[in-house]
């Protein structure tokens, strides 16, 4: 087995372990504490925000405006339309700015 195949297999096992791990840890508890519950409810917003905040604020001006557009457009349009329009905004602003 080559070093590369060994590395890929290790990464596959490690990635799978992180995807299964949270559930295994949590399912050991019979009752979920209300604070843990509130914390888990916050996971989607917290993780997605942490993922995108640097990309939105530190990439550049077209990207920052595009990110702001994605927020505003989401109030009126479907997710797909908001995505297409905000992506087009970034592309156009890159030509202009």
């Amino acid at each position: 087995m080559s070093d590369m195949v060994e590395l890929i297999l290790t990464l596959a096992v490690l990635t799978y372990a992180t995807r299964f791990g949270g559930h295994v840890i949590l399912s050991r508890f019979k009752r979920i504490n209300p604070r843990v519950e509130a914390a888990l409810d916050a996971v989607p917003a917290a993780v997605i925000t942490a993922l995108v905040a640097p990309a939105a604020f530190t990439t550049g001006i077209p990207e920052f405006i595009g990110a702001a557009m994605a927020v505003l457009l989401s109030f009126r349009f479907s997710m797909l339309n908001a995505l297409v329009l905000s992506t087009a905004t970034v592309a156009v602003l890159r030509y202009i700015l």
Partner: protein
Amino acid sequence: MSVDTQLINESQEFRDGIKAAIPIVAAASPFGAVFGAAAISNDMTFFDAVFMSGIVFAGASQMVAIDLLATPLPFWTIVLSVFAVNFRHILYSASLGRKMHRFGPLQKALAFFVLIDPQWAISEKRTLSKPLTTGFYFGLALPIWVMWVLSSAFGAAFGRLVTNPEAIAFDFILPLYFIALLMGFRERYGWLPVVLVSGSAALLAFSIVGPPWHVACGAFAGILFAAWRGKPKDLMALSPTENSSGEGTNV
């Protein structure tokens, strides 16, 4: 709900899943091709690149891994970096796992294998209105996995044909996608304060420690804030896990 109506719903659920996968397939296939092309130019073989996409199936950490490739192979540096990038998956499985009470043990085992960012976020959003079914979940997962493997193979085979995706802002489509998705959660209790806390903490960590730690730091700041704040009593009764607390403990 009777078994019959569940069976009828499953095929509709599967179609709903495929429909939800379409924007992801469109948005992520250029990244698969970019990964394949970058893997080849960093001295991976065609087989290694496609094999990695098939069994690791993690866009960001695959990019990190090939970015760190060198001779001799910095094995543990790559393994640790990938762990840091993947750490958020622990939160995904803790959060979504308790909504998988309709999944059998083998279905759960397979479900966690495909638990990538959009898979998790779309499934979480689905649970705001409907219970999570295997039909929806795997209808969503299958096209994305097939796309990821095929686009990696395409990029590895025709790497030089993948032209600059920046001209049409394809390199920024995933952040925008996640912002649009994030907005879908805005009705959830405490959404805005959690977003503000996580965003500030992530930006702070990004400038002080650097990537990929901003993800873990920002996420934990928002989650700790939510735990500290707790939940108002009248919302506790409406919470879906309170109604199905017995089912939620299945492994």
